[in-house]
């Protein structure tokens, strides 16, 4: 089978989804507990993944649940409830399903799931969401149950045909074998009969020691088509008669279109149409070049509105003022007043900037709108929400909206928003036939939903080399209040406090508060690493400052307070050993450590960096030790750490979106810089063997890099940086923070 056949786009809509029929309770087990691991989501999953009749169940095809189809020829199709945006989840999901199914892994085909929360909703959210590093955590049990349940029905079918006990049959590589008689039947030959079996009440899952696929560094399904240009992303959708468009929203957040002079734009060869909406303009042409030139030639007078006065200074003034207020208590243990009155006290505040996502694939959506239908081609982390929002924008019932999801050219949280699809639908209302709307990089950077600015204030006390009091206040935007309102309870953004309320250290008196502070004008959203990015940076930076005050080595200081957290302790010890912690280094070279319990994984990271006399930072080496429980595909775990570290070190070194006159000042990669290969450090990732349930991994590297780098700079220069991105002027020779 060629790889092009391995992954196909499912072209289905809700209208094809049958009414819920047989609810096979046996395949739904494991949903009650353990899903809310790091996210602490107080809302119950609206709809667990109850397998129902699948979307394309046809005669002769075995379709025991939403995820598995086996046809008479033995072709096994696995439907992917989560989206592939580089994190390797398609391969991991296929491995889990095929493991319990005992499928022939070399013969499986993967398909994107269509929008359908009932069948494919992420159990943590009750929605089809790929985010929060929880695909494997949320689907581990449901997928294993789905595979095992299907396998049991295939065994029953074979046993019935042979008139033997199912217990005497075994399975491997897509076949059932009755050892005693030597008889063998393929899953394909059993497909029809298996479909009429009654699902068994109890399905035993494999003992992890018997795993044949899970735990092996198997090759990814999605990569072969990514070396030859065949992989199809949303931006690659091509349809007969398609037109191409690009758009510009008011550069000032919240501003509107005033006057438009399109006389010059319409003279550009290839320009077909100018679309003027209340908040944006778009030019439609025969190709992107015509659309782009047309947009450049458009003379738009914007009604900028009240936000045109906002600048970064206002944003920071507001945030700092808000951080002086008392917050809502997210955790309080011991006696914080007593704790802070004991021993030697230290105070600090840490600040993080706005960040853009800048996925390599610029935002896009292709829409074909007719009076009674809307078909969409895009790559999204929220396919069902996109369908619902598109339906609203089109003025059509949801079941008239077809969404063809694709591979994503990066997500990082940006594609947890439907705005690019909604804009395309609104533009498509004025276009006959399909139109592909592609944002320029400038529009992508300037109309993002940004990682919020945060300010974290900490007061802590030290007694006998240990922390006895810890008062921590997070001030920042509540993204969750906008994005998932039911999860915003009692004034606490559960994401914003993640990795602060559950920091790994044993501290007797601990108090964590949250102050919701929405920045003026600037929209905020989830950004790879989410809440832990902020909290781990502040916590781990301050840990180093406290260690220095206590006169302790940063790792020894941490280890002394990790006695109740053996997994964290083991990771830290391994990272120390592998990074040559404590070995001498040249002048102005330092090692810094970061410890994080985030996303259900226990990771310790050491960054080694040099600060030259001009204050420029040179990354030398990064060492991470990770205990993520059972590593479904260890090579993917390593790749996610490597990539996440680069992603976050990029932010620490360069990332900052600034605002002037209500608009974003950065526009493209020349002024919103990315780390490049010539600046990339050596990276070693050590995966710790574990039998615990899998943890999350996609965002962990993104959380690990900045505090470890900041602490390396602290070690190299003695300068305690408290803001990102790194300010070179503070660490050049002769400067002191």
């Amino acid at each position, binding site marked *: 089978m060629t790889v092009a056949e391995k992954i196909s786009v499912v072209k289905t809509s809700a209208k094809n989804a049958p009414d819920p029929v047989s609810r096979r309770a046996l395949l739904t087990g494991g949903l009650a507990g353990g899903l809310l691991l790091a996210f602490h989501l107080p809302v119950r999953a609206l709809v667990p993944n109850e397998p129902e009749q699948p979307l394309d169940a046809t005669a002769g095809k075995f379709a025991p649940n939403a995820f598995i189809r086996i046809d008479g020829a033995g072709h096994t199709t696995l439907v992917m409830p989560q989206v592939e945006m580089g994190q390797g989840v398609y391969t991991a999901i296929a491995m889990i399903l095929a493991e319990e199914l005992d499928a022939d892994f070399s013969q499986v085909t993967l398909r994107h799931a269509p929008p359908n929360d009932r069948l494919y909703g992420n159990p943590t959210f009750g929605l089809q969401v790929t985010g929060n590093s929880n695909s494997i955590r949320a689907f581990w049990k449901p997928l294993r149950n789905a595979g095992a349940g299907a396998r049991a029905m295939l065994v029953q079918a074979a046993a019935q045909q042979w008139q033997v006990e199912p217990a005497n049959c075994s399975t491997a590589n897509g076949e059932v074998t009755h050892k005693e008689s030597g008889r063998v039947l393929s899953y394909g030959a059993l497909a029809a009969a298996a479909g009429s079996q009654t699902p068994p009440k109890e399905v035993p899952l494999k003992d992890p020691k018997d795993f044949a696929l899970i735990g092996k560094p198997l090759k*990814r399904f999605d990569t072969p088509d990514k070396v*030859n240009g065949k992989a199809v992303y949303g931006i690659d959708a091509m349809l007969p008669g398609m037109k191409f468009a690009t758009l510009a929203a008011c550069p000032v957040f919240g501003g509107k279109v005033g006057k438009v002079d399109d006389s010059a734009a319409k003279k550009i060869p290839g320009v077909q149409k100018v679309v003027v909406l209340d908040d944006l303009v778009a030019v439609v042409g025969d190709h992107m*070049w015509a659309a782009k030139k047309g947009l450049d030639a458009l003379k738009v007078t914007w009604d900028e509105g009240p936000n045109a006065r906002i600048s970064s200074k206002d944003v920071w003034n507001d945030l700092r003022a808000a951080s002086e207020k008392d917050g809502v208590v997210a955790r309080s243990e011991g006696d914080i007043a007593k704790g802070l009155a004991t021993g030697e006290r230290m105070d600090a505040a840490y600040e993080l900037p706005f960040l853009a996502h800048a996925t390599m694939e610029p935002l896009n959506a292709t829409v074909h709108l007719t009076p009674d239908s809307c078909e969409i081609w895009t790559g999204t982390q929220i396919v069902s929400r996109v369908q619902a929002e598109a339906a609203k924008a089109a003025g059509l019932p949801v079941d008239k909206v077809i969404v063809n999801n694709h591979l994503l050219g990066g997500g990082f949280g940006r594609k947890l928003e439907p705005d690019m699809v909604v804009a395309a639908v609104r533009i498509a209302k004025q276009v006959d036939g399909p139109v592909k709307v592609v944002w320029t990089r400038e529009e992508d950077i300037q109309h993002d939903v940004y990682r919020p600015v945060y300010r974290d204030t900490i007061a802590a006390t030290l007694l006998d080399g240990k922390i006895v009091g810890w008062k921590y206040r997070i001030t920042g935007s509540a993204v969750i209040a906008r994005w998932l309102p039911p999860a915003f309870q009692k004034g606490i953004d559960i994401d914003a406090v993640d990795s602060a309320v559950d920091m790994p250290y044993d501290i007797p008196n601990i108090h964590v508060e949250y102050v919701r502070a929405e920045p003026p004008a600037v929209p905020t959203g989830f950004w790879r690493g989410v809440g832990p990015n902020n909290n781990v940076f502040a916590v781990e930076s301050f840990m180093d400052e406290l260690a220095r005050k206590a006169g302790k080595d940063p790792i020894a200081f941490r280890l002394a307070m990790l006695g109740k957290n053996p997994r964290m302790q083991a990771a830290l010890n391994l990272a120390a050993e592998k990074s040559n912690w404590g070995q001498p280094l040249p002048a102005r070279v330092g090692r810094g450590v970061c410890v994080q319990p985030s996303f259900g994984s226990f990771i310790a990271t050491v960054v080694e960096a040099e600060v030259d006399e001009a204050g420029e930072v040179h990354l030398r080496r990064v060492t991470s030790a990770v205990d993520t429980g059972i590593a479904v595909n260890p090579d993917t775990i390593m*790749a996610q750490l490597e990539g996440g570290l680069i992603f976050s070190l990029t932010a620490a070194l360069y990332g900052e979106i600034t605002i002037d006159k209500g608009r974003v000042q950065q526009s*493209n990669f020349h002024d919103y810089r990315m780390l490049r290969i010539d600046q990339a450090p050596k990276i070693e990732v050590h995966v710790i063997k574990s039998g615990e349930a899998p943890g999350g991994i996609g965002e962990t590297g993104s959380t690990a890099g900045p505090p470890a780098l900041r602490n390396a700079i602290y070690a190299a220069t003695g300068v305690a940086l408290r803001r990102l991105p790194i300010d070179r002027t503070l660490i050049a020779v002769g400067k002191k923070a």
Partner: protein
Amino acid sequence: MATTLTINGEPKSFDAPADMPLLWVLRDVLGMTGTKFGCGIAQCGACTVHIDGKPVRSCMLPVSAVRDRAVTTIEGISASSAGAKVQKAWLDLEVIQCGYCQSGQIMSAAALLATTPNPDDSDIDAAMAGNICRCGTYVRIRAAIKQAASGRQS
């Protein structure tokens, strides 16, 4: 403007404005979507193709400037020995994550190996620093180029 270009060894005729960057001819006129749009200002390298074997950012190359020179894209790079080696090393070392930048990475790496069969780290830095990878696959890109150069098997 009626134009004929030789792309991956085959003549392709089309009508496009003279100032239209090759990127959009490939993607929107010819439907060859393996070459990617990333920034439009030659800052990210996602649009890298070869013109007479040399890596060029197609997002800023007017189609009229190509003239009779040979265009090679990701769809045709496996025909060259360096290209095939790079593709194989990319898969052997599982370089790729989202993959969106990787057409450009592979084109830059193939051009490097065609002229510098045994590149050292500074050669790799010089040839590859124009290609941004937002997923951060640089460590594996470096290793894969070295593997492709040595012909080692993983």
